[in-house]
């Protein structure tokens, strides 16, 4: 049971509380943690809210984007400089939840949620983390795999904004809005001289966490970005994926449609 909810206005105070308590957790938007607190015996005694830490905000310098950890999905979606990524944000939950949910929190959403994390994985985003020993950086691929230590706080995310022609995003849901991914595809594919120069393709709904599909990426490099070569490359997804069954789709179904959605995301129907 909770015996303390802190709303510190200083990062060091937040880190100290976190380090000093028996069973603490960070509370950002609350959309993932509060359902647990409300209905289960979580064993948590302390919540440290990031609300007043001044970690929200977006800065863009050239193509380099830095987003504060507690920036809401709503604020992300409204930033004209990030218009290219607006479809990612708008594919997540519903407006009231986006008004609360934070960008960093999305990295810790269990699959098949966490569509922004999928996009950030395709963008090779870097995560800034504060801990008792100071700041560190880690690639988002590591954070979605291992999380952060119990006494650490994600403070910001940075990534290079892709140009319009190289960015692809498609989330397949059972409903048009407010639903989890059956399959979510985010990709940055650069084409030069008629062939793919580099490809980074991330999937949601394809495994226990957002994941990249290096086998598909490698098969695509050097090929033209057309239906034939994408279909051939997408067929190699199984080496990298562990599709699962949940209320939205069965593992069997996801396995069937993952290559289809990779193809649709990159070259259309």
């Amino acid at each position, binding site marked *: *049971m*909770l015996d303390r909810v802190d709303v510190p206005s200083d990062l060091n105070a937040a880190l100290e509380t976190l380090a000093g308590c028996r069973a603490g957790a960070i509370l950002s938007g609350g959309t993932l943690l509060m359902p647990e607190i*409300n*209905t*289960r*015996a979580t064993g948590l005694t302390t919540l440290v809210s990031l609300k007043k830490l001044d970690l929200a905000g977006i800065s863009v310098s050239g193509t380099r984007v830095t987003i504060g950890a507690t920036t809401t999905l709503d604020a992300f979606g409204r930033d004209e400089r990030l218009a290219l990524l607006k479809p990612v944000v708008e594919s997540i939950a519903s407006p009231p939840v986006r008004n609360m949910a934070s960008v960093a929190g999305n990295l810790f959403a269990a699959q098949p949620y966490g569509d922004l994390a999928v996009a950030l994985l395709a963008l090779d985003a870097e995560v800034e983390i504060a801990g008792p020993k100071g700041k560190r950086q880690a690639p988002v691929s590591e954070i979605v795999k291992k999380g952060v230590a119990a006494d650490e706080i994600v403070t910001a995310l940075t990534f290079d904004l892709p140009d319009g022609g190289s960015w692809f995003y498609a989330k397949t849901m059972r409903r*048009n*809005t407010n639903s989890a991914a059956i399959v979510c595809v985010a990709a940055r594919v650069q084409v030069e001289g008629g062939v793919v120069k580099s490809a980074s393709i991330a999937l949601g709904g394809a495994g226990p966490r957002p994941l990249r599909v290096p086998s598909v990426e490698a098969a695509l490099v050097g090929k033209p970005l057309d239906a034939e070569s994408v279909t051939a490359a997408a067929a190699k997804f199984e080496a990298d994926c562990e599709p699962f069954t949940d209320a939205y789709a069965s593992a069997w179904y996801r396995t069937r449609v993952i290559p289809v959605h990779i193809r649709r995301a990159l070259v259309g129907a």
Partner: protein
Amino acid sequence: MDDHIPSETSGETLDRSYFSDENQHDFKVVGQPSPRLDARGHVTGTTRYFEDNHFRGTLHIKVCRSKRHHAKLTRIDPAPAMNVPGVVRVLTAKDVPANWYTVLRLINVGPNDEPVLAEDSVRYLGEPICAVVAESEAAAIEGASRVQVDYEDLPVVLDVEEALKPDAQIVNPVHGKNYFEYEGHPFRRIRFGDVEKGFAEADHIFEHRYQSRPIEQAPVETTGCIVKPEGDGRLTIYSDTQACFFTLDNTALILDVPTAKLRVVGGTVGGGFGGKVDVMVEPLACIAAMLTNRPVKFVYDRAEEMQVSSPRAAERIYIKDGVMKDGRIVARKMTFYIDSGAYSRHTPYGVTKASAHVPGPYSIPNVWADCHCVYTNRTPSSAMRGFGVTIGDFALESQMDRIAKTLGLDPLIFRLKNAYRDGDTKAHRKKVEGAALIEVIQRAAELVGHDLPEEYRKMSSVKREAK
């Protein structure tokens, strides 16, 4: 996302071509919009649902539930729960005066086959074992998580047909077999004409299997109640039950008190759809209120609503039809396996409804149906919007479409050929009145621009055309 929501269409007037005899009056209200009496309360947030009643010092209940589908309970130790600050009491089966019940005993359906709180065994995942009563919801949740329960697993029966095999594990010892007995029969039966003869004469035989999963009603307001002990020794039960008197009578029987001791305040339900017909929360809240002399609230959380509030039963249905070249169905045999879960609740009645719906709205000279109400180690199923009928309809109408497709018949014509009509005798030996199926199909066809040949446009439910 460019869906456009059409504006409200004007009210349809009565179809006097069919209802000419029945409605002679000029209606002042029927066909006219009339504001809902409760709408103002709903849009101002002033409608009083059960949980909008507040009493100082209200205690909260959280139930410790079975983590197994089927097991012997070798130990229940509530002591660790009592150590949680704020936990006031832990109720076990011993605290329930008349622990075994079945809701439909009020209309002579028996036997009592379900405990309010588990005694020596649990028979489905999520079955209530004990109830933690605490000063706050958080303390009740914490307490319920700390109750120590030791299980000795028993074989699990999860499939309706497996359950009926002779060597199947018995789910419910009260029945002693994995089916509900209907007047000495192991299933509800319909026998009309001679189906085997019908099949022998038929040009085509169609046999298919249909299956559904349990369907949760998922009302936005979860199942719950607040019970307040009054100065005169009575208990007031503020509840969102859809069935105030079922709740009142069953709760009185479980508490072993006269019904006059209880007053149910209900009738305002934040969505029910059949999910709030069973008597799920009131008995435990009453017992806790009696033992503590304090108001007690027991509300399901969303996960409980999804997992243990009784859903629509899962069904498996086999249909075998004998059909002539011209599309007349001459024999229909249906076998229903309807999953009651571990206990009866409303499903024996649902199975009766399923049988009453055979063979669908069609006149078929030879009909046979076996409708099994089967016990398995799954969440007990119960009422939900047309329960017992809707899944049967899904199977029947899917079957109709499949047959029409195979025979190359227009699916509406195929149905018109077989539609029941006023004066026909149904498989239950009831004379059909007010069928109107033909007129509905004709009108539907017209509305969607589906052309029907003259002879089918001229058909009538009231009168059969001359051969």
